[in-house]
């Protein structure tokens, strides 16, 4: 190797921008000419000024005492403190079920699994949590690890189906734990849903809103494409009616009118449930239109090929059309679900105390006057964490499903 000095591996002869990649990047992107350099410096100065003001407020001015003092209220509303262990049990079980399903569906402990298992540990760093809560989070992390480990030894043949059963069983157990068993003296006295509140209620409304509106929306989308005029017209009327009405008016209608539509003698539907019905019906109409967009992106040849190999209309919808249509609209659907999650805050206007509703009661409490900024920032951060998680999960899912597509 006599010409070693000339080979690319000898970095000393490279120009400085190539020897140090960071220098090269800075010069290309931020200091490419005089004007850009000035812009860069001006932007930097602006960022520093804003950051200083904000950080000074965060560390010296803000009265963060309001958050720990009302932390339980923000998290679970008026859910009785004596029954809070049930909520933690719900979270432990969630951790375990996530671990089990991850093992059953994905199989290995990949990158996204590291992100998932990191969530409880990151939450433990949040300064407002008590030591007890941190211990509970640690138990959750252990539960999901254990779920993942144990699921590897379960004698299960049809893994996807088993995961679905685990999820359904979890939902049932979760509802029983939240709602309690009949009998005031029993080990789990009932907790009326109107006492559920705060983040707990926001997440429950969003979760059940999404999972219930999704199948309904898919059916409506198919109905709108149906060859049967009655089905098609009903679907169109439903979708167009709901989309033409603001969610808040549906929430009010749900509170006032739902009972009128139910048969006589039907037990009084709980207020929270009435809100959930309104949210579900609202979201279903939007899901239907998004799914219809996906259905229309499927080329005619796919339907014909499915028919030609002898699949029935139902089979071709399940195996050929829907998987492709839904895949095409994942980003839109997730966007819609994120906006549904944020729209649940409107239930505060019909007297249900979700996260934002609780926040408003806290700042109107005379003891905590003048703490709007602190409370609303925490609420915003909480919403951001969950919305961003959904958006991150959707991108992972797209990449995973995008393999070999078309």
């Amino acid at each position, binding site marked *: 190797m006599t010409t070693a000095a000339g080979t690319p591996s000898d970095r000393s002869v490279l120009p400085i921008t190539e020897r140090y990649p960071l220098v090269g990047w800075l010069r290309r992107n931020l200091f490419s000419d005089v004007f850009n350099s000035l812009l860069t410096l001006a932007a930097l100065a602006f960022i520093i000024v804003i950051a200083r003001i904000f950080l000074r407020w965060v560390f010296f001015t803000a009265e963060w005492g309001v958050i720990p003092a009302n932390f339980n209220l923000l998290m679970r509303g008026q859910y009785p403190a004596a029954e809070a262990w049930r909520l933690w049990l719900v979270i432990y079980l969630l951790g375990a079920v996530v671990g089990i399903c991850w093992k059953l569906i994905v199989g290995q402990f990949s990158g996204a699994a590291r992100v998932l298992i990191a969530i409880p540990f990151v939450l433990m760093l949040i300064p407002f949590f008590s030591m007890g809560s941190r211990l509970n989070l640690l138990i959750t992390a252990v539960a999901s690890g254990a779920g993942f480990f144990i699921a590897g030894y379960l004698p299960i043949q049809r893994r996807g189906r088993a995961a679905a059963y685990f999820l359904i069983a979890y939902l049932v157990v979760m509802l029983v734990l939240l709602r309690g068993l009949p009998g005031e003296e029993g080990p789990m006295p009932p907790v009326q849903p109107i006492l559920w509140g705060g983040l707990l209620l926001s997440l429950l409304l969003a979760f059940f809103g999404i999972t219930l509106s999704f199948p309904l929306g898919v059916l409506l989308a198919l109905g709108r494409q149906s060859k049967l005029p009655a089905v098609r017209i009903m679907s169109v009327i439903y979708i167009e009616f709901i989309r033409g009405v603001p969610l808040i008016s549906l929430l009010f209608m749900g509170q006032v009118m739902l009972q009128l539509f139910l048969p006589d003698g039907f037990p009084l539907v709980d207020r929270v449930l009435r809100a959930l019905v309104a949210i579900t019906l609202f979201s279903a109409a939007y899901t239907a239109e998004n799914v219809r967009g996906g259905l229309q992106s499927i*080329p005619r*040849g*796919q339907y*014909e*090929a*499915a*028919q*030609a*190999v*002898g*699949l*029935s209309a139902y*089979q071709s919808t399940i*195996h*050929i059309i829907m*998987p*492709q249509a839904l*895949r095409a609209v994942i980003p839109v659907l997730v966007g819609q679900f994120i906006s549904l999650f944020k729209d649940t805050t409107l239930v505060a206007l019909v007297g249900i105390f979700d996260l934002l509703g609780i926040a408003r009661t806290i700042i109107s409490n005379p003891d905590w006057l003048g703490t709007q900024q602190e409370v609303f920032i925490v609420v915003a951060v909480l919403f951001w964490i969950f919305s961003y998680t959904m958006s991150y999960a959707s991108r992972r899912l797209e990449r995973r499903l995008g*393999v*070999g*597509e*078309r």
Partner: protein
Amino acid sequence: MAENDTAEMADNGTAEEIIICQDVCKWFGDFQALKDCNLRVQAQEVVVIIGPSGSGKSTFIRCINRLEEHQAGDIIVDGIPLTRDVRNIEQIRSETGMVFQQFNLFPHLTVLENITLAPIHVRKMRKDEARDTAMGLLNRVGIPEQADKYPGQLSGGQQQRVAIARSLAMSPKIMLFDEPTSALDPEMIKEVLDVMQELAETGMTMLVVTHEMGFAREVAHRIVFMDGGEIMEVGTPEHFFTNAQHERTKLFLSQIL
């Protein structure tokens, strides 16, 4: 040797007629795409349909498995009359394979899943059995190594061979080919035609719409010439290429050859 189609039909009157089309008419709105089309295809026969574009060739074979609905006349496939009855339609479709110009593979499924889907869900075949059949068919069309790829990762010729394997997986009695090589790059046409020729040699009943005159000449038992939605002339390849009767047939052949 038969000089025209009535004579030939009389000759083979005893053979099983697997497709019978009687006075089939089809309109798209005001436009009449098929005008009184009559064709009888015997089991194990290879019939090639040629004609200028827009002459109704594709519409005609798409009527046979009801991808298009004919509005007048009768179509009887393997003794089953093609009516509005969904059971009849599904039965005919499960006995009839179809290969499309644009392949129409299912892009979200692997090659193997494309082939096993219908046997598993329509024929209720066991999964491992369907898988074995599919691998056998992939061997037959010459691409067993592509089994776990997605259609988007294959060349056009490979995709079309997968599409043929997908149709064959339902063990059809009849195969319909709708311009199977028209969307392919020239160097890939042969690999698909070879597979089709082998299929013809096994005694499959085939109805092929194509512009490949070499294939028509070598493989077809009979050639059908269509123009303006009508069947103008039916005859053996020799008859067609040496002694076509109809003026429009002669004009078409002179343009294409």
